[in-house]
C-alpha cells in the first residue's frame, strides 16, 4: 500500500467504516510511514475540533407552523371566495397576458425579473420577421456547413491515417511472410540433407551387413559341400563293400 492509497482509506478508517480486510494493510503502512501517521493524527484532531461545535436549540412555534399550513391549504379557496373582486383580478390578468403575448416583441424571465419589451414601431411586420428568421436560418446553415466540412476534413485525415497504417501493416505482413517462407525453405533443405545423409549411412551399413552375410552363406555352403563329398565317399565305400559282400554270397551259393 502506498501513501496515496492510505490517505484515501483514512476517512473511512476514522469513521469505523473501513472494511475489516483493509484495516491490517493500513495499520501496517501507518507503522512504517511517519508522514501518513502524522496525517492521521491531524485528521483525528480535526474531528476533535469539529466535536467542539455545540448543538443549538431553537424551538419552533407550532402556532406559526399551523397558520402557515392553513394559509397554504386554503390560499386558492380563500381567494376564490372573495367573490367578484377575485374574478375581476383573474380577468385583468388574462387580458394583460393576452396583450403581452400579442403585442410584446420580447418576453423574458431572467434572474427573478420579468422583462417585457415592446418594439417602438409596434410589432415587426411579417416580412421583417420572415427576413430575420431567414437570416438566422442562413447563419445556422452556414455554421452547420462549416462544422460539417471540418468534420469531413477530420474524417478524411483519419481515413488517410488508417490507410497508411494498413499499408504499413501489409508491408510488415509481406516481410514476415517472406521471412517465414525463407526459414521454411532452409528447414526443408536441412531436413533433406539430413535424410540423404541418413540414407547413405544406412545403405552403407546395409551393404556391409549383406556382404558379411554372403561370406557367411558361402562358407556355410562350402562346409555343406565338404560334408556332402565326405558323405558321398562314405556311401560309395559302403556300396562297394555291400557289392563285394553280395558277390561273395553269390559265389558261395
Amino acid at each position, binding site marked *: 500500500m502506498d501513501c496515496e492509497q492510505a490517505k484515501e482509506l483514512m476517512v473511512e478508517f476514522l*469513521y469505523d467504516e473501513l472494511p475489516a480486510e483493509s484495516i491490517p494493510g493500513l495499520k501496517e503502512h501507518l507503522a512504517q510511514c511517519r508522514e501518513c501517521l502524522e496525517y492521521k493524527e491531524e*485528521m483525528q484532531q480535526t*474531528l476533535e475540533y469539529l466535536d467542539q*461545535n*455545540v448543538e443549538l*436549540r431553537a424551538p419552533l412555534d407550532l402556532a406559526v407552523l399551523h397558520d402557515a*399550513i392553513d394559509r397554504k391549504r386554503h390560499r386558492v379557496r380563500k381567494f376564490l371566495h372573495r367573490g367578484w373582486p377575485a374574478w375581476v383580478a383573474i380577468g385583468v390578468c388574462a387580458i394583460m397576458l393576452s396583450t403581452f403575448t400579442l403585442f410584446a416583441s420580447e418576453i423574458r424571465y431572467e434572474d427573478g425579473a420579468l422583462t417585457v419589451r415592446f418594439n417602438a414601431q409596434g410589432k415587426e411586420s411579417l416580412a421583417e420577421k420572415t427576413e430575420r428568421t431567414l437570416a438566422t436560418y442562413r447563419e445556422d446553415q452556414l455554421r452547420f456547413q462549416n462544422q460539417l466540412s471540418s468534420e469531413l476534413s477530420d474524417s478524411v485525415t483519419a481515413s488517410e491515417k488508417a490507410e497508411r497504417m494498413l499499408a504499413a501493416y501489409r508491408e510488415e505482413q509481406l516481410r514476415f511472410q517472406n521471412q517465414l517462407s525463407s526459414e521454411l525453405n532452409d528447414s526443408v533443405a536441412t531436413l533433406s540433407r539430413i535424410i540423404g545423409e541418413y540414407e547413405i549411412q544406412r545403405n552403407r551399413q546395409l551393404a556391409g551387413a549383406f556382404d558379411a552375410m554372403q561370406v557367411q552363406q558361402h562358407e556355410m555352403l562350402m562346409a555343406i559341400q565338404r560334408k556332402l563329398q565326405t558323405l558321398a565317399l562314405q556311401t560309395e565305400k559302403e556300396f562297394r563293400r555291400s557289392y563285394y559282400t553280395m558277390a561273395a554270397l553269390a559265389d558261395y551259393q
Partner: protein
Amino acid sequence: MQPGDGELMQKTKEGDMRAFDVLVRRWEHRLFNLIYRITGDFEAAKDIRQEVFLRVYKAAKRYRPQSQFKAWLYRIAVNCSINELRKRERRRTIPLMMTHKNDDMEEYSFENALPDPNPGPDDVAQQKEMAEHIQNALRRLPHEQRVVVILRHYEGLKFRQIASLLDCPIGTVKSRMRQGLEQLRVKLRYLCREGGVERGL
C-alpha cells in the same frame, strides 16, 4: 412506548394534527442544527425548517411507510438548504463571516446546549468562540463538501446513506469528505490558534 415516525406520518396522512406536532417536536432541533450548519444563518435556518415541515405535511399524502423517514426528511432539508445557498450565490450576497451578531445567539438558548449544566461565564464564552470558529470554517467549504461533512460527522449517516440521499456515487461522497476534512484541518488549526482557543482543547 413512543410511536415511530412512520406511524406518526400515517396519522398525519389521516388528518391527525397532534401526531404531526409530535413529529415536529421530535425533529425540530436536529433539523435546525442540520440546516443552520449548512446555511450558517440563524434566521434562514428557522425559515427553511418551517418550509421543510410544510413540505413534509404537504407530502404526507404521498408518503410510503416502507421508506425511511429520517432519510426522506434529511433529503428535503438538504435540498431546501442547498436551494437557499444557490439563491444566495446567484444574488452574490453570501457573507464571508457569520451573518448574525453574537447577541443573537442568546435568543436561541445557547447555554441550554452546553454539556455542563452550570457553566462559568468563561466556559460559555469559550464554547461560543469555538462554535463560531467551527461554523466559520464550515462556511468556507464548498457547499458540496460541507453537506457531506455535516451529514457524516454531526448526523452520523454512513457514506452509502449519504450517497443515496444526495443521489451521487459513494466514491464522490468519500472524496468530498476527504477534501472537506483536509481543508478544515488547515482552517481550524489556523482559526483556533488565532482565536486563542487552542488552550481549551
